[in-house]
């Protein structure tokens, strides 16, 4: 097997709530792999476990040959990540954020300045390099985070909704860069997105997760064939249903309110 990510029977519970429910899958070396699912499906939770930020309740995760529970340091050396939520230091400048990352990931000191310059130019932030990040717009912050994620060249790159809030130009630009890097350095890419056309175009294989369970896995073609649909979006909707996920939560809330109202009335 030449799987660079190997997940077996992974479960994560928060109290009684099962966020990730006994999932198993593998990602091949050099592959671009998409992890799709409705809001709250468990995508970010899975990524956090794969990147040592959260401990699993159960199951085994091997990243680049290292167990993320037993060999955290080596696992951490293997990947880079762009988080879904903000992760910049707002009180530092763009350049300082990049520099800090370069040092944390031991980018050779002779290369740091050039790489930072290239990447900041790439996301068109070089002329703002000395501005504090707190003065940036949301999209600019996102672009900086992506540039930072590409600063060291990891074996595996995790991208949790990297294109959220980015304009189409930047999105295309970014994916091109990532695809090139993946080809050139045999870098594996594991990403999530809610843009189906993005997944269809970029990902070599796709897993669809819903309510913590993987319900389908395969190439975009295979998923379409399996569901007898014409686009990944249709396949996705067919597999996960078209109900909005937050509705469930608010239904439960409604039930609670009813119950409280009844209790209140009985007094």
């Amino acid at each position: 097997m030449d799987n660079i990510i190997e997940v077996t029977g992974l479960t994560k519970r928060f109290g009684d709530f099962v966020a990730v429910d006994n999932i198993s899958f593998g990602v091949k070396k050099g592959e671009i792999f998409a992890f799709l699912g409705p809001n709250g499906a468990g995508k970010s939770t899975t990524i956090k476990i794969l990147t040592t930020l959260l401990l699993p309740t159960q199951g085994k995760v091997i990243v680049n040959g290292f167990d993320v529970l037993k060999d955290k340091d080596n696992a951490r050396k293997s990947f880079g990540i762009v988080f879904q939520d903000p992760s910049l230091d707002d009180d530092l400048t763009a350049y300082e954020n990049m520099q800090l990352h370069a040092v944390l990931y031991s980018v050779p000191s002779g290369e740091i300045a050039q790489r930072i310059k290239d990447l900041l130019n790439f996301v068109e932030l070089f002329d703002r390099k000395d501005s504090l990040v707190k003065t940036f717009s949301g999209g600019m912050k996102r672009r900086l985070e992506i540039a930072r994620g590409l600063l060291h060249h990891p074996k595996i790159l995790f991208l949790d909704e990297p294109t959220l809030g980015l304009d189409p130009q930047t999105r295309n630009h970014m994916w091109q860069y990532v695809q090139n890097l993946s080809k050139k350095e045999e870098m594996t890419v594991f990403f999530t997105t809610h843009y189906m056309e993005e997944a269809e175009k970029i990902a070599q294989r796709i897993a669809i997760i819903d309510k913590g369970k993987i319900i389908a896995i395969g190439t975009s073609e295979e998923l379409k064939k399996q569901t007898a649909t014409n686009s990944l979006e249709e396949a996705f909707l067919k597999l996960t249903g078209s109900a909005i996920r937050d509705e469930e939560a608010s239904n439960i809330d409604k039930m609670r309110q009813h119950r409280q109202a009844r209790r209140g009335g009985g007094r």
Partner: protein
Amino acid sequence: MNVIYILWLRQVKKYFRSRSRVIGSLAQPLLFLLAFGFGFGSVYSKAGGGNYIQFLAPGIIAMSVLFTSIFTGIEIIWDRQFGFLKETLVAPVSRFEIMLGRTLGGATVGAIQGVIVLLLTLIVGFRPASIFLLPFGFLFIFLIGVLFTSLGTAIASKLEDMQGFQLIMNFLIMPIFFLSGALFPLKGLPQIMEIITKIDPLTYGVDGLRGTLIGVSNFSLSLDFTVLAIVTSAFLLLGSYLFSKIQV
């Protein structure tokens, strides 16, 4: 550049960039110095204690180092809320290095603050007894800084948000300050008070500072130093252990 240095630099830069924080944290020691110094000054000297400002200044310096460094340690909570903590936690460097860089940064910030307060006390009339002991005074200032930054880090590693902060302020930091002998001499205290003051690690910091700044101390300087060094190492280890257990 190395990891410890860049994390140290981050703390120091952040400190100098928040001017309101610098000024705000100087106001309190100054207020204490003026209110207590001149308020109790005559009572103190009538009781045969001598010049109260001389006695008080090292205590106030210790106080400002205590507050500044504990806050810098506790800043991890902000890093967690604003998300930056994740960036350091996934990095392929040992937790101890991260902790050490942050802590030395916090201690440096605390020490800078302590030195600024020392300069302020000069204006109010404080005079160090000996120039030669001054470097040892700085050593104590820095040790107090390391000790309480690591304590702050340890505490913050267990807190999810700022909610518990008030509790810690009132039940930990304030007692540490008030029971350290920063404001009053430790001689002739009721026994229970004396025991408590001896458990308080800041007591040895204040005492060491008095020893080096005004040449008067309760314990020997080597005892002060040894106790501080041991407690500091323990908190550093505790802090990096708790820090390594953080999940986000």
